[in-house]
């Protein structure tokens, strides 16, 4: 792997882990959902850098768009905050 | 304008979609072209009723000329806008004076309004917050005038003149 790929790879890995922590701890479920969206964003960059364009595409389609949308609609139909009664 | 026939709309949609397909495939191999024609025809049949209001009429030479003119005006404004933003962002004191202003447009079709709104969004210091009927609500980074007339002149006139020629 050349330097440029490595740089981007490490950056994306850090973003991904950060986003995962963020999604796991946020009390506002919308924030958590946006966090999962960010995970998928970073993840598809990583897949791209590991030369898996097919998977990057699928992750983009499922993770960034569909999964986020499904979560948002579910939150819309239930409650927005984690501790809300 | 109002009486655009379905045939014209269909052909217009078909042609545009076929061009999009060609750009996707970036090849002129015979089977790709045939597949593209079929696929774009199917999609065009599904969507021609709402895809366009103008039909083939938009390919008239006069309109093409105005489209080109609009394109250059737009690019010029876009570049100006970015240097404007750069100036603000990079200056230590953040010289801004934001506010939301309104004006009324003469454009009728939704599509033209969308083009105008997009153009306003991408030009210096302004972007569209909402359209209610014919009224545009614009967020302005450096409010220079608050009355409708001068707002209109400042923000929209340049684009709207050309758009009126294209879409009316």
């Amino acid at each position, binding site marked *: 792997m050349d330097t440029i790929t490595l*740089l981007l790879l490490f950056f994306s890995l850090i973003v991904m882990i950060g986003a995962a922590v963020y999604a796991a701890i946020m009390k506002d479920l919308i924030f958590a959902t*946006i966090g999962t969206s960010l995970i998928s964003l970073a993840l598809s*960059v990583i897949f*791209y850098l590991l030369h898996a364009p097919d998977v990057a595409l699928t992750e983009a389609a499922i993770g960034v768009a569909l999964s*986020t949308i499904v979560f*948002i609609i579910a939150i819309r139909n239930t409650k927005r905050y984690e501790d809300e009664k | 304008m109002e009486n655009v026939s379905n045939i014209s709309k269909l052909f217009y949609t078909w042609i545009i979609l076929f061009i999009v397909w060609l750009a996707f495939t970036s090849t002129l191999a015979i089977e790709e072209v045939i597949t593209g024609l079929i696929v774009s025809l199917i999609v065009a049949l599904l969507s021609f009723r709402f895809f366009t209001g103008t039909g083939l009429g938009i390919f008239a030479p006069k309109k093409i000329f105005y489209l080109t003119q609009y394109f250059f005006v737009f690019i010029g404004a876009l570049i100006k806008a970015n240097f404007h933003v750069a100036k603000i962002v990079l200056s230590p004191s953040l010289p801004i004076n934001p506010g939301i202003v309104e004006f009324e447009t003469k454009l009728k079709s939704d599509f033209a309004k969308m083009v105008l709104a997009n153009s306003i969004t991408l030009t210096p210091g302004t972007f569209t917050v909402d359209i209610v009927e014919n009224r545009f609500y614009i967020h302005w980074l450096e409010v220079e005038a608050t009355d409708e007339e001068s707002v209109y002149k400042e923000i929209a006139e340049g684009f709207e003149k050309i758009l009126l020629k294209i879409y009316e």
Partner: protein
Amino acid sequence: MNVFFIIIMGIIMLAGVFAVIRFVKGPTTADRVVALDNLSTIVVATLIFMGFVFQRFIYIDVSLIYAVLGFIGVLTIARYLEGGI
């Protein structure tokens, strides 16, 4: 040549860092979504750029589809904010 690419990549990554900071800082949902939108634009550009670095023409499909899906994802969140969906 290579150095030029690394510098470009570095600038783009710096942009990513700022967007991520805004994403974490918030304070409202809309701010985070703006950061996410900006990040996905950055990612689209990055993916095309990396495709050029890798010299594979077909990788460009990924960013094309990414642009479409990211747009729809952001649009859904925006519609959620205004009470649509």
